[in-house]
């Protein structure tokens, strides 16, 4: 499988994202296109990973979980990095879009992180002999999950939208220390977890299957973040709306004459 084909997979989502930056209305069609792309690519990716890609020399078929584990952890890191970007954007421009997007990306990133770490633990049992080991990569990933749980908890515990947005932007900015630690933990510290691979050292079929899966999960991430963003915007609109804008209060049954 030629390597350019793997890179070409990213053209559709990347092109759509760039187009949306210039023309905001495209987002409504764009997310549906990505949802369709994810729906097609995920099952194909499962087939590519489970049967098409060759077994690994040492681990045999056990390694195949990486086609789900690695992309999901990537998406988790991408989600929290997006959260950092939105947090900085909020602190600079006080934009509600950035605040809602920060909430969405943190929550979706946390979801991908939890699934990714769980898959890693499942893989760890047959390979390392244990589900969990106090290795720098695993520990820092777990710490990241706790931090972003705390971030979301703080958002729930603060009623005033202005205060909540500023504080969570500050937390999101401070928190970038953690994903950076997760990414570089395998390089900085002696770790049981393997360091990042490069396509040069990996079988081209494996590279292709992994890129395919990553592209599928990227589409899924974009769809999730956008849907969660819409929920956050709606919740915000409801919070700041005056009571009369919400329409007449429902009359309880039995009180109507």
């Amino acid at each position, binding site marked *: 499988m030629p390597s350019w084909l793997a890179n070409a997979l990213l053209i559709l989502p990347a092109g759509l994202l760039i187009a949306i930056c210039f023309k905001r209305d495209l987002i409504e069609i764009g997310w549906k296109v990505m949802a369709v792309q994810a729906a097609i690519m995920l099952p194909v990716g499962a087939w590519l990973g489970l049967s098409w890609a060759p077994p690994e020399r040492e681990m045999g078929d056990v390694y195949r979980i990486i086609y789900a584990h690695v992309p999901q952890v990537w998406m988790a890191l991408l989600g929290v990095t997006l959260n950092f970007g939105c947090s900085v954007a909020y*602190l600079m421009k006080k934009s509600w879009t950035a605040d809602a997007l920060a909430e969405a990306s943190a929550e979706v990133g946390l979801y991908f992180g939890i699934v990714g770490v769980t898959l890693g633990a499942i893989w760890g049992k047959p390979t390392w002999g244990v589900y969990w080991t106090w290795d720098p990569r695993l*520990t*820092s990933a777990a*710490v*990241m999950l*706790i*931090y972003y*749980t*705390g*971030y979301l*908890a*703080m958002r729930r*515990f*603060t*009623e*005033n939208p*202005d*205060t909540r947005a*500023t*504080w969570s*932007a*500050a*937390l999101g*900015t*401070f*928190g970038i*220390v*953690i994903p950076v*630690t997760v990414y570089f933990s395998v390089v900085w510290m002696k770790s049981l977890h393997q360091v990042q691979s490069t396509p040069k050292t990996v079988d081209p079929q494996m590279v292709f299957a992994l890129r395919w899966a990553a592209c599928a999960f990227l589409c899924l991430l974009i769809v999730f973040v956008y849907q969660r963003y819409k929920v956050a915007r709606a919740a915000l609109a409801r919070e700041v709306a005056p009571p009369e804008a919400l329409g007449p209060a429902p009359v309880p049954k039995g009180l109507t004459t």
Partner: protein
Amino acid sequence: MTLLADSPATRRPPGLLAATLVVLRKDLLIEWRTRARLNALLFFAISTLLLFSFALGAKSAVLKAHAGGYFWLAIIFASILSLSESFRIEGENAALEGLKLAAIDARAVFIGKALGNTVLLWGLGIILAPLSIAVFDLNVMLGLWRLVGIIGIGSMAISAAGTFYSAIASNARARDVLLPILLFPVLVPVIISSVGATSLIFEGDPMGQMSSWVGMLGVLNVIYWALGLVLFPRITEDI
């Protein structure tokens, strides 16, 4: 009241350093007048140290091998009490409003309060260190002044991140839950490197690893203080 001069000609806002010293002096004075916080912290930390030995059973060898970890955990747990207290006192009589209304740089409040917390935690560590050495039967291989220095830079890192997070948590609902959830994850690298450095002091450093742990603590200090300085003025605007 050094902040308010009498004649209009000299009524200029004080500089960052002057304001920092005023905030620091205020915090230490409040602490000195009651001495409640340091006493509470000390007994809390001592009981934490003792609890570790109860939880692990009376196995001296195990306790001795991990003494650095217990020592720092006792400090970290105590720091949660200290940090939330440092903003609780500002809640009384709307003192924080007064600080915000004073014509001083908000960064001075951050540096002053973080230094105040550093002094408290450092003091706590210095009192706790001989106690741990006695209780866990430790040998100081590399010199006491190094231990004092490591407790100092560890406390600085904890206080910088902690002051920032406790400013947020102390004003949110469920403050007691929120501070540890937010602070502990950020403190993990600090715990790893301070425990690493402290263990070397008790066990000796044949491989020359001390400088890398101290370097890591230094880098963490730079990151936390810089982020705190940049972000603290923004979060206090909205309290």
